[in-house]
């Protein structure tokens, strides 16, 4: 499994039968490939789909939130942007999975701007992080060795104190009131490796081997 597949497969285990889920662009999109067959998960695309299906080349009438040709599943519906964000902001999305530039031990996320360098804009990310019931960050553990999991985000925030779980190719970490707890570590790495690659202080109690690695795809 590639690093991206490891992250996506692990996050898929967090989805429950019946959940309504919004996946961000990039690694988060891959999570859809790992939903177990015995669970029915409905995907939402913030441009206005309940029941997003897979990508469809050359499709121009149905697109996903990345503007790519997509499909809608049986039982799905098309909605306007206000209704779409009513789902997102009204707490009707059970899980959102998003990428990060930085994420910190307080559960704050930075993902939409590098001042003076790159300003793509926040799109729907601020709404998703603020409104979804559970926010999971899917990210490489470091940016070429530079920690992305920090004590406190240095880039402008997407939202403060909203992240619940961080999943990287190295580890699974949960944000609680006490701080950031290291829950699982990938067998390729030691706990020490993770600590070294992480700027945030990690609470270490019982650490398990990372789940979901057997479900190759």
């Amino acid at each position, binding site marked *: 499994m590639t690093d991206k597949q490891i992250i996506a497969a692990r996050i898929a285990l967090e989805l429950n039968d019946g959940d309504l889920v919004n996946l961000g662009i990039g690694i988060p999109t891959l999570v859809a490939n790992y939903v177990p067959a015995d669970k029915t998960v409905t995907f939402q695309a913030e441009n*206005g789909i309940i029941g997003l299906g897979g990508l469809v080349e050359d499709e121009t009438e149905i697109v996903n939130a990345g*503007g790519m040709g997509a499909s809608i599943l049986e039982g799905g519906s098309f909605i*306007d*942007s206000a209704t779409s964000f009513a789902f997102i902001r009204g707490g009707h999305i059970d899980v959102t999975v998003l990428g990060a530039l930085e994420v910190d031990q307080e559960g704050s996320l930075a993902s939409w701007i590098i001042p003076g360098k790159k300003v793509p804009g926040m799109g729907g990310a601020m*709404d998703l992080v603020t409104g979804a019931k559970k926010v999971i960050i899917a990210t490489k553990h470091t940016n070429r060795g530079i920690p992305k999991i920090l004590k406190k985000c240095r880039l402008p925030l*997407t*939202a403060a104190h909203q992240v619940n779980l961080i999943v990287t190719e190295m580890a699974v970490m949960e944000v609680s009131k006490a701080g950031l707890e290291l829950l699982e570590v990938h067998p390729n790495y030691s706990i020490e490796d993770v600590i070294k690659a992480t700027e945030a202080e990690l609470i270490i109690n019982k650490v398990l081997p990372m789940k979901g690695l057997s479900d190759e795809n």
Partner: protein
Amino acid sequence: MRSFINAEKFIALLEDGMSIMVGGFLTNGTPEGLIDLVIESNVKDLTIICNDGGYPDKGVGRLVVNNQVKKVIVSHIGTNPMIGTLMSEQKLEVELVPQGTLAERIRAYGAGLGGILTQTGLDTLVQEGKQIIEVNGKKYLLEEALGADIALIGGAIADNYGNLKYNKTMRNFNPLMATACKVVVCEPRKIVDKINSENVITPHPFVDYILVGEYND
């Protein structure tokens, strides 16, 4: 009440300095024929309100490239590098708005609300210069209603009465913008005899003009 107009009459509605809302999400549902005509008119100093900055060769991005735009109010500009460049050269004003907030601000204007209270953007750059209102011990940003002079509506199936429904994901911001502007112009994908009363998304009193002619497919 709606009336059917041609390209010439549409161009006569345009003026320098206007604020224009343009439907569509990464150009899916954007009325490209109306954009063509705005380019043809060569009106200047426009304020463009749209989900995103489109692409250099598609959607509202074309108006930016054609140097007709003074300001954009959007949630995302990552697909149109020209906007970032002009912004850093201070030749274009860019107001970035979280996508859900943008949708609600437009809807609020159409519904006669002064604004809405949201937690999206709290403790981020989005908060700057805005009122913070406390309701039952929780803090919210006051986001003001957002209207414009003219709305350009795409992705629609119109009927002979001027009612609209929308094709698949082309709905997105279109029905919201159709409520929030002094003048509402639709470039329909097709015109049918009658839309069932239960399936109308934009009732005809919201629509002022429907473009007919070569621009419909």
